[in-house]
Each structure stands twice: as structure tokens, then as C-alpha cells.
């Protein structure tokens, strides 16, 4: 009696996984690989999966923190560049820096890359123009 009750419970739980779409047909495939010699195959596979994924997710956390730190560092550097560009009156460079910072704030990585490229262009152009000017 008790055993039948437990079996019903197990079946219900299993069905709910499919109903809620927590698992799909590949889970069933795993189940089909079980036999008398490998009765716990599915559980073994899942134990490995959980162990691996926990480690990977921790790495993801770290990577996200590093990205945040890197982006914050990037913003700080852009802020410094902005300050000195403003102090010397480098207008075009300043504009590109401001644009880039806005894009960076929105989290748009591709846009940020493009912005940095533009900023760099203006900076090199300014340098190319002013260096001969000071020499003359």
C-alpha cells in the first residue's frame, strides 16, 4: 500500500516536470538509458551536472564582477580624459568622450567600442594638427 502511494507520488512529480516544461524529451531519453545494470544512471548524470554547473556559475559571477569592475574602470578613465580634455579646450575630443560615456552607461558594448574608436580618431587628429602648430 505504502509503496503504491510512493510510486504515485513519484509519477506525479515527474509528470509535473514535463507539464511545467522544466524538463523535456531528452530527460526521457536519459531515462531510457537506464537498465538493471545502470539503475541510477539519470541521477548520476544529474549529480555531475549540478556539480559542474555550480562551478561554472561561480565563474560567471566572477566574470560579471570583472566586467563591472572593468566597465567602472573604463568609465573612470573616460572621466579623467574628459576632465583634462575640457581643461585644455579639446572640443571635438570632449564631445566624443561624452557620447561614449553615455553609450557605456546604457551598457551598450558595441556602441561603446564604436564611441572609443571615434574618440581616438578625434584625438589623433587633434594631435596631428597641434604638434606642427607648436613647432612652427
Amino acid at each position: 500500500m505504502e509503496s503504491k502511494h510512493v510510486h504515485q507520488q513519484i509519477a506525479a512529480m515527474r509528470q509535473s516536470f514535463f507539464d511545467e516544461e522544466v524538463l523535456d524529451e531528452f530527460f526521457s531519453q536519459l531515462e531510457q538509458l537506464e537498465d538493471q545494470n545502470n539503475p541510477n544512471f539519470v541521477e548520476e548524470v544529474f549529480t555531475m551536472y549540478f556539480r559542474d554547473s555550480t562551478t561554472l556559475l561561480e565563474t560567471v559571477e566572477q566574470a560579471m564582477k570583472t566586467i563591472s569592475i572593468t566597465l567602472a574602470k573604463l568609465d573612470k578613465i573616460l572621466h579623467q580624459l574628459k576632465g583634462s580634455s575640457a581643461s585644455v579646450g579639446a572640443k571635438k575630443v570632449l564631445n566624443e568622450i561624452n557620447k561614449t560615456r553615455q553609450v557605456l552607461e546604457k551598457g551598450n558594448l558595441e556602441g561603446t567600442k564604436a564611441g572609443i574608436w571615434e574618440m581616438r580618431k578625434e584625438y589623433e587628429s587633434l594631435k596631428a594638427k597641434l604638434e606642427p602648430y607648436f613647432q612652427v
Partner: protein
Amino acid sequence: VVIYAAGSGDVSDLTAPSSIDLRSVSLLDSDHSLAQVSLFDSVVSEMARNGGVAWMRTTEKIGGYDLSTSDTEEVHVLAVDDSLVDRKVIERLLRISSCKVTAVDSGRRALQYLGLDEEIQKKETNGFDGLKVDLIITDYCMPGMTGYELLKKVKESSAFREIPVVIMSSENVIARIDRCLEEGAEDFIVKPVKLSDVKRIIDYTTTELREGEQREGARAKRRGINKRKQREGDDDLSSSPPSTLSSSTSSSPSSSIQSATAPSSPSTLDSPTRRLKMTSSE
């Protein structure tokens, strides 16, 4: 500095200027370009830079400035900024405004200079030694110690809380400005800093310094006169000793202060916030 003066006075003998009317003076820089700063500041800074000062013995008011009071000590400013470019600019702005400048790159170094750093205890009196700082001007955003934290440390110290502190920032954030003013900042200027900002600050700092001296009373004035006379005696300049400097000139500061400020700057008695509002409306 080449001074071309028109009008009365024997210009060929600059060692004894008796009545040169500076209103008709053109000032040429060493590279022969007309200095873009006020006449008064140029004369004082150029002369100071040349290692000696030829005291103007006239007590005439020239362009609103009473030159006989130019012998009060220069304002000594401690400038704090982590940016090399900004440090160079602010140092120049301050020098042009006739200040002595000490520029450091961090709040920590500023505290060390003042002698407030816990690790390096320097005996720093508030007296008349050469390191006395009259004004601190600091950037807000700095790694390590921010300008705000530096402000707090200065205002917390009994020895230095009287020193006015001005905050500079590239961000015009009201909350930040309020916070700094609440903590006792004298003023808050937005970067990039303009010469007019610096002049305004130096003007009222100078005025407050002079008023402070007056409040000390006659004894301080006598002490000041003696110091001046000593210094004049020690001066080994091309100019002849200014024996005609009368004691009446030393008491003239009070009457000439209001005319010593540039026309564009507000009255020195304005509260920092009023000054600030004027700044932001410029």
C-alpha cells in the same frame, strides 16, 4: 617687463618711480604679447617673479587699486588635484593671480603638507612660518581621498579649520555642492576653471585676510609695519631704499579694499551660496 609710461614722471629712472600713472601703461610680456590679465596683477606678479619688488611709493589710487598696499604677503594657496593637466592649469591661474602656489596630487599629500597626516606628524604652528596656507583649492573627484573627505579633515582640525577650502568639480551636481557647502566649503567652482573664478576667490580671500589682520588690532599693525620696514632694509634691489614709505600707507587697507576687487566679482561679504548662484548664472 617693459613699462612704457606716458605722462608725468621720469621714466628713464625706474629705480625711483615717484608718480607713474599706470593708467597709461602698456604691459608687454617677455614674448611681447599683451598680457591678458589685469594691469595690477601683471605688475605685481612680474615684479615678484623678477626676484624683487620696486615698491610704488605713490599712494594714488590707480585704476581702483591702492598700490601702496601691495606689500601684504602673497596669498599662499595649496592646490590639490590628481590630474596633471589640471594641476598645471590651476597652478598657472593662481600664479597669474599673484599667489604663492603649492600643488599636490592627492588629499593625502595635502594633509601631509599641512602636517595633519596621522603617520607623519609635523609640528605645524598657525603662526608666521613660511608654510602657512591661506587657502586650499581642491578637486572633488580624486582616487583615495576625495576633495570632500579632505574638506572634512581640514574642518575637523583645530589648527586648520579656519583655512577656507574651495572645491572644484567637473560635475555640476546640486546635491554635491550642498554637501560641500554644508561641510564648510568656502565655494564650489565648476571645471574647467576660469581665470575669473580664481580671481574672485583670491580677491575675497585677500580681503578676509586683511580684515583678519585688522581685527588683531593696533599691535598687529605695528608688528606688521616693523616687519615691512625690516624687509625693506634687507632688500638689495636696484631701487633706492623707499625711505619715504610713511606709516599712513599701512593703515590704508581698510579704505581701499572695496576698490581692490575686480568689477565683475561680487561683494566679498556675499555668502558662498550667493556667490555660487552668481557663478552658475554666468
